[in-house]
């Protein structure tokens, strides 16, 4: 599968309208970014989204159930002055509602002892729940660092001896990943250093489950990183999209028959999500989009059209998490199954 950067750039190019330029000045965005929000959500919807990005999100404590049960951890953290609230759809996890002045949630003794992981937001729990639902086996996390999802998968698969193959390309991020595995005493793991696009040439096995949480624009995380409002030009976005297509296409070759790959981005950009998956579906006839096996929340549907682009109708089965609807980071998740 060969994909040209120029073709991607031409297809995703967006010219900003006057409305988009005005909103972009008001909220501090690149105009094309806001134009896309208007195209997808309408003018009022775009304003709701832009407002939602101005609000803070709640960090999440995820219990390391290999070492401690969640009620005991909650009790210990509440004794230190943290106010926690159960996440109804993820029984081992809590929203951090308020914190004492000291210690911070990332420096308690309980943290150092490996009793929990701190997520910036609850959204990253969702793809793990969906990918590992009723599954007992090994999993490849192709872009794993810094390790929120990899450590979660390792603890879920610990009892059933499933191994998490956690790979990443960026060495300093791998260092953090290894630190989390050591701190949390998770032993059903292998950490590798490789470009995800080259894994198929280097791995001598296939997987029933693959997590492709690809490096992306991070457009869903603007609430904690406002710099992302202006960081990614349309050309930069096209470069990312090309890489995302290459990674997903390459990883599908590592999928067993009937295996499932979760294509995940912390981005609400259609270019990085439905556009990418649509390109893959149009080049391969051995894949199908599958419905999420769990309804953890009332998901937004995947897009089947965007501006002048028309996508495979199956993409409606993808999941969109919207900051202005769900009060979480923006995320997009597509589950793809390899047909026999």
């Amino acid at each position, binding site marked *: 599968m060969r994909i040209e950067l120029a073709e991607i750039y031409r297809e995703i190019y967006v010219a900003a309208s006057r409305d988009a330029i005005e909103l972009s000045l008001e909220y501090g965005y690149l105009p094309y970014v806001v134009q896309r929000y208007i195209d997808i959500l309408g003018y009022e919807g775009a304003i709701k989204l832009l407002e939602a990005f101005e609000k803070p999100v709640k960090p999440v404590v995820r219990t390391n159930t290999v070492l401690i049960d969640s009620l005991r951890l909650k009790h210990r953290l509440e004794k230190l002055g943290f106010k926690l609230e159960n996440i109804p759809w993820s029984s081992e996890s809590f929203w951090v509602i308020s914190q004492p002045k000291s210690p911070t949630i990332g420096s308690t003794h309980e943290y150092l*002892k490996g009793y929990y992981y701190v997520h910036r937001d609850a959204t990253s729990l969702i793809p793990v729940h969906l990918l590992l639902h009723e599954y007992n086996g090994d999993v490849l996390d192709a872009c794993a660092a810094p390790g929120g999802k990899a450590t979660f998968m390792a603890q879920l698969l610990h009892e059933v001896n499933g191994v998490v193959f956690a790979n990443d390309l960026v060495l300093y991020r791998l260092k953090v990943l290894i*630190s989390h595995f*050591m701190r949390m005493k998770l032993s059903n793991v292998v950490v590798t*250093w490789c470009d995800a696009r080259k894994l198929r040439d280097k791995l001598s096995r296939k997987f029933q489950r693959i997590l492709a949480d690809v490096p992306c624009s991070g457009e869903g995380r603007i609430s904690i990183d406002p710099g992302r409002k202006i960081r990614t030009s349309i050309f930069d976005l096209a470069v990312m999209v090309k890489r995302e297509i290459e990674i997903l296409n390459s990883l599908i070759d590592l999928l067993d028959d009937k295996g499932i790959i979760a294509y995940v981005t912390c981005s609400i950009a259609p270019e990085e999500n439905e556009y990418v998956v649509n390109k893959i579906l149009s080049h391969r006839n051995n894949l199908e989009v599958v419905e999420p096996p769990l309804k953890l929340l009332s998901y937004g549907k995947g897009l089947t059209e965007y501006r002048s682009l028309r996508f495979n109708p199956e993409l409606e089965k993808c999941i969109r998490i919207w900051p202005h609807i769900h009060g979480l980071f923006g995320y997009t998740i597509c589950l793809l199954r390899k047909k026999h």
Partner: protein
Amino acid sequence: MKLKTGALRKPTREKISSLLRRLYNVDSSKYVPSTLRYVCLNEDPCIIYGSKLDIGDLTVLYEDSWIALYTKKRFVPSISIVQSIYSDHGIKSAIIVKEQGVKAFLYGNDILPDSVIDTIPPIGELITVIDSTDGEIVGFVTWNPRRRIYENIFDIGLFLRKLG
């Protein structure tokens, strides 16, 4: 970042085994896998881990669980291994430390004798630090008779401080 990784040579593996024998008088083969690898992400610490799987032509940086660290120019056994040894043979060479002492220790500080609630002999060249609040192992020290202090060799806060 400097990366060094590879198979651990037999003499180095033997150093870890003999440390366990000296400290706890145990058959180290039960606790130390036959094949070990190491990874150094920058200079200190280097991580020694057991290697089990053959997964192809990939650069493996870590696998299974850590067996030992090389830090401050000496080997330190993993907490999991020492927990297993204590579970099999009882606690040896350990101090039980007050909450405040543990708090300072986890930030990389040494432990004052006043913070020690109990000492479990025989005290060897490496002393295990046990948190009095929950009985968990939180690191290792050595006794410095000149400074009259338990010097921090490794504490579990090191993962956060050195590795991120």
